[in-house]
Protein backbone atom coordinates (compact mmCIF):
# COMPACT_ATOMS: atom_id res chain seq x y z
CA UNK A 1 0.00 0.00 0.00
CA UNK A 2 2.85 2.32 0.92
CA UNK A 3 4.45 1.31 -2.30
CA UNK A 4 1.44 2.30 -4.35
CA UNK A 5 0.67 5.63 -2.74
CA UNK A 6 4.13 6.87 -1.94
CA UNK A 7 7.00 5.03 -3.52
CA UNK A 8 5.57 4.38 -6.95
CA UNK A 9 4.56 7.93 -7.80
CA UNK A 10 8.03 9.05 -6.73
CA UNK A 11 9.74 6.38 -8.77
CA UNK A 12 7.54 6.22 -11.81
CA UNK A 13 7.02 9.95 -11.90
CA UNK A 14 3.29 9.52 -12.30
CA UNK A 15 0.29 9.20 -10.04
CA UNK A 16 -1.21 5.77 -9.46
CA UNK A 17 -4.58 5.37 -11.19
CA UNK A 18 -7.44 5.91 -8.71
CA UNK A 19 -8.98 2.47 -9.37
CA UNK A 20 -5.74 0.72 -8.39
CA UNK A 21 -5.49 2.83 -5.26
CA UNK A 22 -9.16 2.20 -4.41
CA UNK A 23 -8.85 -1.58 -4.69
CA UNK A 24 -5.63 -1.55 -2.68
CA UNK A 25 -7.25 0.49 0.06
CA UNK A 26 -10.20 -1.90 0.09
CA UNK A 27 -7.85 -4.84 0.52
CA UNK A 28 -5.99 -3.04 3.29
CA UNK A 29 -9.30 -2.44 5.00
CA UNK A 30 -10.18 -6.14 4.80
CA UNK A 31 -6.80 -7.08 6.30
CA UNK A 32 -7.18 -4.60 9.13
CA UNK A 33 -10.61 -6.01 9.89
CA UNK A 34 -9.15 -9.51 10.09
CA UNK A 35 -6.33 -8.26 12.29
CA UNK A 36 -8.89 -6.83 14.69
CA UNK A 37 -11.40 -9.69 14.57
CA UNK A 38 -9.30 -12.82 14.31
CA UNK A 39 -6.01 -11.89 15.95
CA UNK A 40 -6.42 -8.97 18.31
CA UNK A 41 -10.03 -9.69 19.40
CA UNK A 42 -10.28 -8.65 23.07
CA UNK A 43 -6.64 -9.27 23.79
CA UNK A 44 -4.02 -6.65 24.53
CA UNK A 45 -1.66 -7.98 21.89
CA UNK A 46 -1.96 -9.90 18.64
CA UNK A 47 -1.08 -13.35 20.01
CA UNK A 48 -2.20 -13.01 23.62
CA UNK A 49 -1.87 -10.90 26.78
CA UNK A 50 1.83 -10.15 26.25
CA UNK A 51 3.79 -8.50 23.46
CA UNK A 52 5.39 -10.95 21.04
CA UNK A 53 7.26 -10.90 17.73
CA UNK A 54 3.86 -11.05 16.05
CA UNK A 55 3.13 -7.50 17.29
CA UNK A 56 6.49 -6.25 16.04
CA UNK A 57 5.92 -7.65 12.58
CA UNK A 58 2.37 -6.29 12.45
CA UNK A 59 3.13 -2.78 13.70
CA UNK A 60 6.09 -2.19 11.42
CA UNK A 61 4.00 -3.21 8.43
CA UNK A 62 1.16 -0.90 9.38
CA UNK A 63 3.49 2.07 9.81
CA UNK A 64 4.05 1.94 6.05
CA UNK A 65 0.58 3.07 4.97
CA UNK A 66 0.65 5.58 7.85
CA UNK A 67 3.79 7.14 6.41
CA UNK A 68 2.03 7.34 3.06
CA UNK A 69 -0.71 9.43 4.58
CA UNK A 70 -3.22 6.62 5.06
CA UNK A 71 -4.87 7.12 8.45
CA UNK A 72 -4.95 3.44 9.41
CA UNK A 73 -5.42 4.05 13.12
CA UNK A 74 -7.75 7.06 13.02
CA UNK A 75 -10.93 5.18 12.16
CA UNK A 76 -10.01 2.10 14.19
CA UNK A 77 -9.87 2.82 17.93
CA UNK A 78 -9.10 -0.82 18.77
CA UNK A 79 -5.99 -0.79 16.57
CA UNK A 80 -5.02 2.67 17.81
CA UNK A 81 -5.13 1.44 21.42
CA UNK A 82 -3.04 -1.58 20.45
CA UNK A 83 -0.51 0.65 18.75
CA UNK A 84 -0.15 2.71 21.93
CA UNK A 85 0.43 -0.44 23.95
CA UNK A 86 3.09 -1.73 21.53
CA UNK A 87 4.81 1.65 21.44
CA UNK A 88 4.81 1.77 25.25
CA UNK A 89 6.23 -1.76 25.57
CA UNK A 90 8.91 -1.18 22.95
CA UNK A 91 9.71 2.29 24.27
CA UNK A 92 8.66 5.51 22.52
CA UNK A 93 12.21 6.60 21.65
CA UNK A 94 13.14 3.27 20.10
CA UNK A 95 9.87 3.15 18.19
CA UNK A 96 10.37 6.66 16.76
CA UNK A 97 13.98 5.94 15.93
CA UNK A 98 13.07 2.76 14.04
CA UNK A 99 10.43 4.61 12.01
CA UNK A 100 12.38 7.80 11.40
CA UNK A 101 13.35 6.90 7.83
CA UNK A 102 9.92 5.80 6.69
CA UNK A 103 8.20 8.82 8.27
CA UNK A 104 10.54 11.22 6.51
CA UNK A 105 10.15 9.74 3.05
CA UNK A 106 8.41 12.84 1.71
CA UNK A 107 11.55 14.80 2.43
CA UNK A 108 13.80 12.43 0.51
CA UNK A 109 15.89 14.05 -2.21
CA UNK A 110 14.90 12.95 -5.74
CA UNK A 111 16.38 9.60 -6.75
CA UNK A 112 19.26 9.47 -9.20
CA UNK A 113 17.58 9.33 -12.67
CA UNK A 114 19.83 6.49 -13.85
CA UNK A 115 18.90 4.39 -10.82
CA UNK A 116 15.25 5.32 -11.30
CA UNK A 117 15.28 4.00 -14.85
CA UNK A 118 16.98 0.79 -13.76
CA UNK A 119 14.47 0.13 -10.98
CA UNK A 120 11.39 1.21 -12.95
CA UNK A 121 10.58 -2.25 -14.47
CA UNK A 122 10.68 -4.08 -11.14
CA UNK A 123 8.63 -1.35 -9.50
CA UNK A 124 6.04 -1.59 -12.27
CA UNK A 125 6.00 -5.36 -11.76
CA UNK A 126 5.10 -4.90 -8.10
CA UNK A 127 2.10 -2.83 -9.12
CA UNK A 128 0.55 -5.79 -10.96
Amino acid at each position, binding site marked *: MWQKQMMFPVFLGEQVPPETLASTLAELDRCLQ*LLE*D*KFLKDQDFVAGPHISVADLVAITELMHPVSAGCQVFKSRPKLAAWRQRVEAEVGKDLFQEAHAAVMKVEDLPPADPAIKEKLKPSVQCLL*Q
Partner: protein
Amino acid sequence: MPLELFLDLYSPPCRAIYIFARKNGIPFELRPVDLGRGEHLKPEFLKVNPLRKLPALKDGDFLLAESVAILLYLSHKYQAATHWYPTELQARARVDEYLAWQHTAVQVPASNVYLCKSLLPHLSGQPVDPVQLDRLLGKLKPALQHLDGEVLAAKPFLATEQLSLADLMAFTELMQPTAVGCDIFQDWPRLAAWRARVEAALGPELVQDAHRLVLQPRDPRDAQRDPKLAQELVQRLLERLS
Protein backbone atom coordinates in the same frame (compact mmCIF):
# COMPACT_ATOMS: atom_id res chain seq x y z
CA MET B 1 -12.75 -35.90 20.51
CA PRO B 2 -9.76 -36.71 18.29
CA LEU B 3 -7.79 -34.11 16.35
CA GLU B 4 -9.72 -32.76 13.36
CA LEU B 5 -7.98 -31.63 10.18
CA PHE B 6 -10.00 -29.54 7.75
CA LEU B 7 -8.41 -30.20 4.39
CA ASP B 8 -8.99 -30.15 0.66
CA LEU B 9 -6.44 -32.40 -1.02
CA TYR B 10 -6.55 -30.15 -4.08
CA SER B 11 -4.63 -27.67 -1.93
CA PRO B 12 -0.84 -28.15 -1.59
CA PRO B 13 -0.52 -27.03 2.05
CA CYS B 14 -3.37 -29.40 2.90
CA ARG B 15 -1.54 -32.24 1.22
CA ALA B 16 1.62 -31.43 3.18
CA ILE B 17 -0.31 -31.70 6.43
CA TYR B 18 -2.08 -34.88 5.31
CA ILE B 19 1.21 -36.53 4.37
CA PHE B 20 2.89 -35.37 7.58
CA ALA B 21 0.09 -36.66 9.80
CA ARG B 22 -0.10 -40.02 8.00
CA LYS B 23 3.68 -40.46 7.85
CA ASN B 24 4.01 -39.76 11.57
CA GLY B 25 1.11 -41.97 12.56
CA ILE B 26 -0.82 -39.03 14.04
CA PRO B 27 -4.44 -40.03 14.72
CA PHE B 28 -6.85 -37.56 13.15
CA GLU B 29 -10.28 -37.20 11.64
CA LEU B 30 -10.28 -35.86 8.12
CA ARG B 31 -12.89 -33.13 7.60
CA PRO B 32 -13.00 -32.55 3.85
CA VAL B 33 -13.83 -28.99 2.78
CA ASP B 34 -14.39 -28.62 -0.96
CA LEU B 35 -12.82 -25.35 -2.16
CA GLY B 36 -14.17 -25.88 -5.67
CA ARG B 37 -17.68 -25.84 -4.24
CA GLY B 38 -17.04 -22.80 -2.07
CA GLU B 39 -17.45 -24.75 1.16
CA HIS B 40 -14.75 -22.60 2.76
CA LEU B 41 -17.03 -19.58 2.32
CA LYS B 42 -19.99 -21.10 4.15
CA PRO B 43 -21.00 -19.98 7.68
CA GLU B 44 -20.26 -23.41 9.24
CA PHE B 45 -16.65 -23.19 8.17
CA LEU B 46 -16.36 -19.57 9.29
CA LYS B 47 -16.68 -20.89 12.86
CA VAL B 48 -13.63 -23.08 12.27
CA ASN B 49 -11.51 -20.48 10.50
CA PRO B 50 -12.74 -16.88 10.18
CA LEU B 51 -9.97 -16.34 7.63
CA ARG B 52 -11.96 -18.62 5.27
CA LYS B 53 -8.89 -20.57 4.27
CA LEU B 54 -7.56 -24.10 4.38
CA PRO B 55 -5.94 -25.93 6.07
CA ALA B 56 -7.41 -25.60 9.55
CA LEU B 57 -7.01 -27.68 12.70
CA LYS B 58 -9.32 -28.31 15.65
CA ASP B 59 -7.83 -29.95 18.72
CA GLY B 60 -10.62 -30.04 21.29
CA ASP B 61 -11.48 -26.35 21.71
CA PHE B 62 -8.23 -25.18 20.17
CA LEU B 63 -8.61 -23.83 16.63
CA LEU B 64 -5.56 -23.18 14.48
CA ALA B 65 -5.07 -21.85 10.96
CA GLU B 66 -2.00 -21.41 8.70
CA SER B 67 -0.23 -24.47 7.30
CA VAL B 68 3.19 -23.69 8.77
CA ALA B 69 1.75 -23.10 12.23
CA ILE B 70 -0.22 -26.33 11.95
CA LEU B 71 2.81 -28.38 10.84
CA LEU B 72 4.86 -26.99 13.71
CA TYR B 73 2.06 -27.65 16.21
CA LEU B 74 1.79 -31.26 15.03
CA SER B 75 5.60 -31.69 15.06
CA HIS B 76 5.86 -30.50 18.64
CA LYS B 77 2.74 -32.14 20.03
CA TYR B 78 3.48 -35.55 18.56
CA GLN B 79 7.25 -35.26 18.93
CA ALA B 80 8.06 -35.96 15.30
CA ALA B 81 11.60 -37.11 14.44
CA THR B 82 13.99 -34.16 14.60
CA HIS B 83 14.94 -34.18 10.91
CA TRP B 84 11.54 -32.62 10.22
CA TYR B 85 12.27 -29.56 12.37
CA PRO B 86 15.83 -29.73 13.75
CA THR B 87 16.71 -28.85 17.32
CA GLU B 88 20.09 -27.41 16.33
CA LEU B 89 19.79 -23.60 16.16
CA GLN B 90 21.14 -22.87 12.69
CA ALA B 91 19.65 -25.93 11.03
CA ARG B 92 16.27 -24.91 12.44
CA ALA B 93 16.81 -21.35 11.22
CA ARG B 94 17.32 -22.68 7.68
CA VAL B 95 14.01 -24.50 7.80
CA ASP B 96 12.36 -21.33 9.18
CA GLU B 97 13.95 -19.30 6.43
CA TYR B 98 12.54 -21.55 3.72
CA LEU B 99 9.08 -21.73 5.31
CA ALA B 100 8.88 -17.92 5.52
CA TRP B 101 10.17 -17.32 2.00
CA GLN B 102 8.04 -19.90 0.27
CA HIS B 103 4.64 -18.28 0.92
CA THR B 104 5.11 -15.51 -1.59
CA ALA B 105 8.02 -16.89 -3.59
CA VAL B 106 6.75 -20.40 -4.32
CA GLN B 107 3.18 -20.91 -3.12
CA VAL B 108 1.64 -17.90 -4.83
CA PRO B 109 3.25 -18.30 -8.27
CA ALA B 110 2.98 -22.12 -8.33
CA SER B 111 -0.68 -22.01 -7.34
CA ASN B 112 -1.41 -19.29 -9.86
CA VAL B 113 -0.10 -21.53 -12.64
CA TYR B 114 -2.40 -24.31 -11.42
CA LEU B 115 -5.39 -21.94 -11.17
CA CYS B 116 -4.84 -20.65 -14.71
CA LYS B 117 -4.25 -24.10 -16.19
CA SER B 118 -6.89 -26.10 -14.34
CA LEU B 119 -9.37 -24.53 -11.93
CA LEU B 120 -10.25 -21.38 -13.88
CA PRO B 121 -10.98 -23.22 -17.16
CA HIS B 122 -12.94 -25.82 -15.23
CA LEU B 123 -15.16 -23.25 -13.54
CA SER B 124 -15.53 -20.85 -16.44
CA GLY B 125 -15.85 -23.39 -19.25
CA GLN B 126 -13.34 -21.29 -21.20
CA PRO B 127 -10.09 -22.66 -22.66
CA VAL B 128 -6.77 -21.94 -20.97
CA ASP B 129 -5.41 -18.45 -21.74
CA PRO B 130 -1.94 -19.20 -23.16
CA VAL B 131 -0.63 -15.64 -22.73
CA GLN B 132 -1.64 -15.55 -19.09
CA LEU B 133 -0.23 -19.04 -18.49
CA ASP B 134 3.08 -18.04 -20.00
CA ARG B 135 3.25 -14.89 -17.87
CA LEU B 136 2.45 -16.87 -14.71
CA LEU B 137 5.07 -19.53 -15.51
CA GLY B 138 7.52 -16.68 -15.89
CA LYS B 139 6.73 -15.51 -12.35
CA LEU B 140 7.57 -18.95 -10.95
CA LYS B 141 10.88 -19.16 -12.76
CA PRO B 142 13.03 -17.11 -10.31
CA ALA B 143 12.12 -19.43 -7.43
CA LEU B 144 12.91 -22.53 -9.50
CA GLN B 145 16.18 -20.99 -10.61
CA HIS B 146 17.11 -20.26 -7.00
CA LEU B 147 16.20 -23.73 -5.73
CA ASP B 148 17.84 -25.62 -8.58
CA GLY B 149 20.82 -23.37 -9.25
CA GLU B 150 21.77 -22.31 -5.72
CA VAL B 151 20.10 -24.28 -2.95
CA LEU B 152 20.29 -27.80 -4.38
CA ALA B 153 23.75 -27.20 -5.81
CA ALA B 154 24.98 -27.11 -2.22
CA LYS B 155 22.95 -29.85 -0.53
CA PRO B 156 20.54 -32.73 -1.17
CA PHE B 157 17.50 -31.16 0.54
CA LEU B 158 16.23 -27.62 0.71
CA ALA B 159 17.17 -26.60 4.24
CA THR B 160 19.48 -29.22 5.71
CA GLU B 161 21.19 -32.48 4.77
CA GLN B 162 17.97 -34.37 5.53
CA LEU B 163 14.30 -34.25 4.60
CA SER B 164 12.55 -31.50 6.60
CA LEU B 165 9.27 -29.57 6.68
CA ALA B 166 10.80 -27.30 4.04
CA ASP B 167 10.98 -30.18 1.53
CA LEU B 168 7.49 -31.37 2.38
CA MET B 169 5.96 -27.94 1.74
CA ALA B 170 7.98 -27.40 -1.43
CA PHE B 171 7.13 -30.84 -2.78
CA THR B 172 3.37 -30.46 -2.57
CA GLU B 173 3.57 -26.89 -3.94
CA LEU B 174 5.66 -27.86 -6.95
CA MET B 175 3.47 -30.89 -7.63
CA GLN B 176 0.50 -28.56 -8.07
CA PRO B 177 1.26 -27.19 -11.56
CA THR B 178 2.97 -30.49 -12.46
CA ALA B 179 -0.10 -32.58 -11.66
CA VAL B 180 -2.22 -30.60 -14.13
CA GLY B 181 0.20 -30.78 -17.04
CA CYS B 182 2.73 -28.00 -16.39
CA ASP B 183 5.77 -30.08 -15.53
CA ILE B 184 7.97 -27.55 -13.82
CA PHE B 185 10.64 -30.18 -13.13
CA GLN B 186 11.49 -30.83 -16.76
CA ASP B 187 13.87 -27.88 -17.15
CA TRP B 188 15.55 -28.21 -13.76
CA PRO B 189 17.58 -31.43 -13.31
CA ARG B 190 18.58 -30.89 -9.66
CA LEU B 191 14.97 -30.17 -8.75
CA ALA B 192 13.89 -33.31 -10.60
CA ALA B 193 16.45 -35.40 -8.69
CA TRP B 194 15.34 -33.78 -5.42
CA ARG B 195 11.73 -34.60 -6.22
CA ALA B 196 12.59 -38.29 -6.64
CA ARG B 197 14.50 -38.25 -3.36
CA VAL B 198 11.61 -36.66 -1.49
CA GLU B 199 9.07 -39.04 -2.99
CA ALA B 200 11.21 -42.02 -1.98
CA ALA B 201 11.63 -40.67 1.56
CA LEU B 202 7.92 -39.95 2.02
CA GLY B 203 6.84 -43.21 0.45
CA PRO B 204 5.46 -43.45 -3.11
CA GLU B 205 2.12 -44.90 -2.00
CA LEU B 206 1.44 -42.12 0.49
CA VAL B 207 2.43 -39.50 -2.09
CA GLN B 208 0.19 -41.10 -4.69
CA ASP B 209 -2.70 -41.28 -2.24
CA ALA B 210 -2.34 -37.63 -1.28
CA HIS B 211 -2.15 -36.54 -4.94
CA ARG B 212 -4.91 -38.78 -6.27
CA LEU B 213 -7.45 -35.92 -6.48
CA VAL B 214 -5.23 -33.32 -8.12
CA LEU B 215 -3.91 -35.86 -10.64
CA GLN B 216 -7.41 -36.71 -11.89
CA PRO B 217 -8.96 -34.64 -14.63
CA ARG B 218 -11.90 -32.64 -13.29
CA ASP B 219 -15.48 -33.59 -14.16
CA PRO B 220 -17.00 -30.65 -16.10
CA ARG B 221 -20.44 -31.45 -14.65
CA ASP B 222 -19.18 -30.42 -11.20
CA ALA B 223 -18.94 -26.77 -12.26
CA GLN B 224 -22.35 -26.80 -13.90
CA ARG B 225 -24.05 -28.02 -10.73
CA ASP B 226 -24.11 -24.50 -9.24
CA PRO B 227 -23.51 -21.95 -12.01
CA LYS B 228 -23.93 -18.92 -9.72
CA LEU B 229 -21.26 -20.16 -7.34
CA ALA B 230 -19.01 -21.04 -10.27
CA GLN B 231 -19.37 -17.49 -11.53
CA GLU B 232 -18.49 -16.04 -8.11
CA LEU B 233 -15.43 -18.25 -7.84
CA VAL B 234 -14.39 -17.33 -11.40
CA GLN B 235 -14.55 -13.64 -10.43
CA ARG B 236 -12.35 -14.21 -7.40
CA LEU B 237 -9.87 -16.18 -9.49
CA LEU B 238 -9.71 -13.55 -12.24
CA GLU B 239 -8.99 -10.88 -9.64
CA ARG B 240 -6.28 -12.96 -8.09
CA LEU B 241 -4.62 -13.76 -11.42
CA SER B 242 -4.76 -10.24 -12.88
